[in-house]
């Protein structure tokens, strides 16, 4: 099996695990980690496509995108963590309750 | 197509602008408010008279504002539109006077008079609309502008009546909307009077056209209060008397009836309507409504409620006249637009006067009221004779023409309906007249208002006398040129010559 296929398949698996985690996990931190796993899958997918038949060197565009994407994902995750912490400080809640 | 003129737009703005300005006034600026109101009302009557004169000279007035490709806002002046606009504007002037007297010292008059003006704006807009879309725009505008008037008193009863009113009218409006869009898709933008468009399609897709006709008819029948869509009308009589006058005579029900006239004569055309056999169901429902309304009216003790059911019945004369083909019945239908208006407004004014002056709202309380309010009950009696169809009051003319038209068309059953309805009219109106003039009052009641030397306030009395005289004059002078009947005949003759 070629390397990029392994990467691609792994990325799909990670993506699905992430989505599942977001819906199944109850704890805020677990949900946030799930989004990070999802992001990891997506970035892996990008990187795996950098090896192209037409080129004899790695395609730089996916790398540029992954770097930007990681920055965005880090910012979102940090923001989500800050919100979760604030909620915990205010209410002591660690997960969504029915009425929220 | 025709010269662009801002006159029709000016007619619309003659009440839209005062209404908007009134909304910006303070509640206590009543002098300015009254001035604006009357200025707008007089200006509107004047403008319509001017346009009417110009129209008779052969001038054409039209205003077109394209909104989107194939979607244009068109105001155009034709005889039928002017006829309805004249009715609305004249009765609006009278009703404004009456409302000023009626609501003196009342609450939220700013809101009331503003929406009162919007309401008549919508009515004249409906009258002057040049195509189906413009008509629909004003038709919905009318619904919205009457709602605050219906709930004006703010009591739970009024608010509930308002809800019923909205359910019926918005529901009807939605069905009408569906019909209008479907018509647009099938036949393109149709100006009123362009009956050849539908005529050319009648043989191609008759089923679609039939469905669209009945969709639009259902939408219009809500406002025209045709059974079983009449439920809102008796309930909305909780509104103040000037509003009832507006609902029953000036604007709302008339908009429905006028819409039916437009739909049959100016959109589909009589030939297509006959060819597709669209008119029979309308005739049957209208005839049933006439009898049904009268029977229900018999059992009402509430004065205004009896009048409301009477409107349900009387209004369907117009639809019935439209549904029977022939010059005479068409003329009867069109002229009844005016005749019903002036007679019913007289009755509502009279009922309002009695309720405002002595607080009587039930018919069983009216014993001997004629002696205390001779002028009010006098004109009321005239209107009653008109409703029953006794000559020489206006109502007789309408019924006579409808009857002649029915005979001409060979629909003898319609004559029976008319006779039966007249008998029922007599049965529910004459007891009021009898009580008012010939029964002794149980106890003497003092008037609730400061009435001075007259039997009630001048601003309440003058309008009712004016409309009473109008309903007599419309009958007596029916044969003269310029009378409602002569104009209605002209319109009807043009329809059948085309």
């Amino acid at each position, binding site marked *: 099996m070629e390397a990029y296929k392994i990467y691609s398949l792994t990325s799909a698996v990670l993506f699905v695990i992430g989505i599942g985690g977001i819906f199944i996990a109850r704890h805020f931190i677990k949900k946030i980690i799930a989004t990070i796993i999802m992001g990891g*899958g997506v970035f892996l997918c990008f990187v795996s496509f950098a090896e192209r038949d037409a080129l004899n060197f790695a395609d730089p565009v996916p790398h540029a*995108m992954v770097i930007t994407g990681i920055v965005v994902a880090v910012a979102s995750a940090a923001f989500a963590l800050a919100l979760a912490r604030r909620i915990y400080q205010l209410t002591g809640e660690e997960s969504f309750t029915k009425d929220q | 197509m025709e010269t662009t003129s801002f006159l029709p737009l000016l007619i619309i703005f003659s009440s839209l602008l005062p209404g908007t300005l009134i909304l910006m006034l303070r509640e206590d600026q009543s002098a300015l408010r009254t001035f604006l109101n009357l200025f707008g009302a007089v200006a509107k009557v004047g403008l319509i008279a001017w346009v009417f004169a110009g129209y008779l000279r052969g001038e054409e007035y039209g205003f077109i504002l394209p909104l989107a490709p194939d979607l244009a806002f068109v105001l155009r002046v034709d005889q039928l539109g002017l006829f309805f606009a004249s009715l609305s504007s004249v009765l609006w002037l009278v009703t404004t006077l009456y409302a000023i007297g009626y609501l003196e010292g009342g609450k939220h008059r700013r809101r009331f008079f503003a929406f009162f003006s919007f309401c008549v704006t919508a009515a004249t807009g409906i009258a002057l609309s040049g195509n189906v879309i413009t008509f629909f725009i004003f038709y919905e505008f009318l619904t919205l502008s009457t709602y605050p008037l219906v709930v004006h008193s703010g009591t739970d009863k009024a608010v509930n009546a308002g809800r019923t009113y909205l359910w019926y009218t918005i*529901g009807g409006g939605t069905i009408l909307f569906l019909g209008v869009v479907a018509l647009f898709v099938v036949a393109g933008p149709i100006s009123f009077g362009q009956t050849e468009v539908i005529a050319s399609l009648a043989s191609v897709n008759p089923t679609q056209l039939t469905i669209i006709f009945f969709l639009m008819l259902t939408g219009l029948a809500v406002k025209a209060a045709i059974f079983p869509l009449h439920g809102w009308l008796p309930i909305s009589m909780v509104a103040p008397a000037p509003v009832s006058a507006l609902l029953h005579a000036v604007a709302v029900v008339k908009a429905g009836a006028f819409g039916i006239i437009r739909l049959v004569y100016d959109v589909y055309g009589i030939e297509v309507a006959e060819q597709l056999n669209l008119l029979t169901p309308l005739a049957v429902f209208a005839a049933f409504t006439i009898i049904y309304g009268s029977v229900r009216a018999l059992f009402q003790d509430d004065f205004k409620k009896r009048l409301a059911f009477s409107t349900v019945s009387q209004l369907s004369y117009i639809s019935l006249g439209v549904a029977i083909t022939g010059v005479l019945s068409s003329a009867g239908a069109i002229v009844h637009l005016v005749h019903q208006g002036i007679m019913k407004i007289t009755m509502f004014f009279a009922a309002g006067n009695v309720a405002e002056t002595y607080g009587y709202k039930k018919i069983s309380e009216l014993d001997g009221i004629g002696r205390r309010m001779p002028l009010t009950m006098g004109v009321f009696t005239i209107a009653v004779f008109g409703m029953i169809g006794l000559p020489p009051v206006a109502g007789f003319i309408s019924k006579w023409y409808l009857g002649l038209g029915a005979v001409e068309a060979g629909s003898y059953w319609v004559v029976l309906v008319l006779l039966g309805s007249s008998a029922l009219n007599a049965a529910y109106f004459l007891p009021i007249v009898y009580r008012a003039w010939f029964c002794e009052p149980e106890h003497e009641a003092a008037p609730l208002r400061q009435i001075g030397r007259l039997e009630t306030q001048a601003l309440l009395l003058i309008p009712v006398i004016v409309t009473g005289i109008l309903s007599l004059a419309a009958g007596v002078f029916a044969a003269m040129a310029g009378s409602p009947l002569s104009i209605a005949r002209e319109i009807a003759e043009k329809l059948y010559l085309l």
Partner: protein
Amino acid sequence: MTDLPTSPFPALLVGLPFLLATLSLFFSSKGKAVVGLIGSFLTALLAIVAFVEVTQQGTVIHILGGWEPPLGILLRMDSLAAVFIGMTALVGVFISLYARGYFRAQEDSSEGFPLFWPLWLFLWAGLNGLFLSNDLFNLFVTIEVIGICAVALAVLSGKKAALFAGLRYLLAAITGSMAYLFGVALIYGSTGTLDLALLGQVLEPGPTTTFALLVITPGLMIKMAGFPFHFWLPPAHSSAPAPVSALLSALVVKGAFYILLRLWTEVFGVSLTFAAGQLIGVAGAVAVIWGSWQAFMQTSLKLIVAHSSVAQLGYLLLVFPLLVLAPGVTADSADWLSPAWTAGVYQVIAHAFAKASFFLSAGIIIMAMGHDRIESFRDLAARMPMTVMAIGLAGVSLIGLPPSGGFMAKWNLLQGIFLSGQWWWAPAVLGGSLLTASYVFMLMRLAFAPARKKEPLRPVPFRLQVFALLLALGSFLIILPAESLIQFLESSQIFGSGIESIVEGGVYGND
């Protein structure tokens, strides 16, 4: 693409609000508001100048820093983008003016929220950037900027309900954008390009494209709160301060719709089946009915308005089944495409104006009464006539009664539905209108009813009421330039284009 006239405006439209937002961070609370307000005016002015330029020159482009794509960024402003940017500018200026008065009136009660201004300008920069983007990845970055700013705005108050709603919103937004990005990766992997126009030519139907479509579409529907992914919207929009709710409902969700519309018509054309369009349509129809019904069942004003957004966004989804043509139908012969596009654009604009006005009015009522439970609406027509008027007018536009912008949208939508023969959408459109009428007139009925007990009203600055009313009037005035606006839009290549599905299969695939 690069042979189009170059203009500095696309770059300025993104750069100016971005710069001012950064600048305002260095000011005190009061300075932030002043910079924010000036920035709003400047950005709006710029948007209008740019709009005028597009009307004269047609589509203009800007290549950032002279770096050609694919590594550089190309901004493209066609007439569709210009209309969206213009709408953002008009609605945005009114919301800014309102926000200044609203926050100033509450400064003493620690509800001043100076951070509103930089966040709002960042959001504006993101929106402009999104409308101008010409490649898939840029769209991702801008929608992330929008998403994070929107969540930050939504949690401004720091209250418990807002934080919970905000976190839910943020998680939904991240999920949505990650799904979108996954699709972008797949498309890039199979074509090697991100340019929208180029993709439209080179993208070929196949399992990869289908899979990309299957992740991108739900991803964007999460972002635009399309049914069944609308769960995050009502709590987030209703718990935010009034000007923020207005921004979120009027503008933010439209961004995702814009991407979805562009991708479906420009990029995915070849891979879509008639059935795919129908599926989105079903989601839209359910959203219209369900959202309106939920709105009708609520007892607080802001929740009514928020649920109503779900329904109104459903109308936008109803445009898609009309755009996807059944096999064998060519775009030239489909005369319902232009009405469908007009309906979509007008629904976006009319909803922006009406919903902004609705939320701003709700803010006024909360300011006056301290809460927004609808039982205390009684007698409001007499006590706050201007606000009731604004709610009434905005409501009429949402219902779609003439002569409002909402009417223009529903009129064209129904016309498109009948012309295309897909009459089964008509009950949803009309039923939604009736349900909308039910909750709008429920409010009106209460406003006219007598008060059981009169609570004292706190004073509200008069101009706040004026701004809300002006926005409501705006939702009516927008039909006046309809004809020229549609002509202008038709100069955009994608306006009026259909999606010719060549893929076999689907509901009507065999005939």
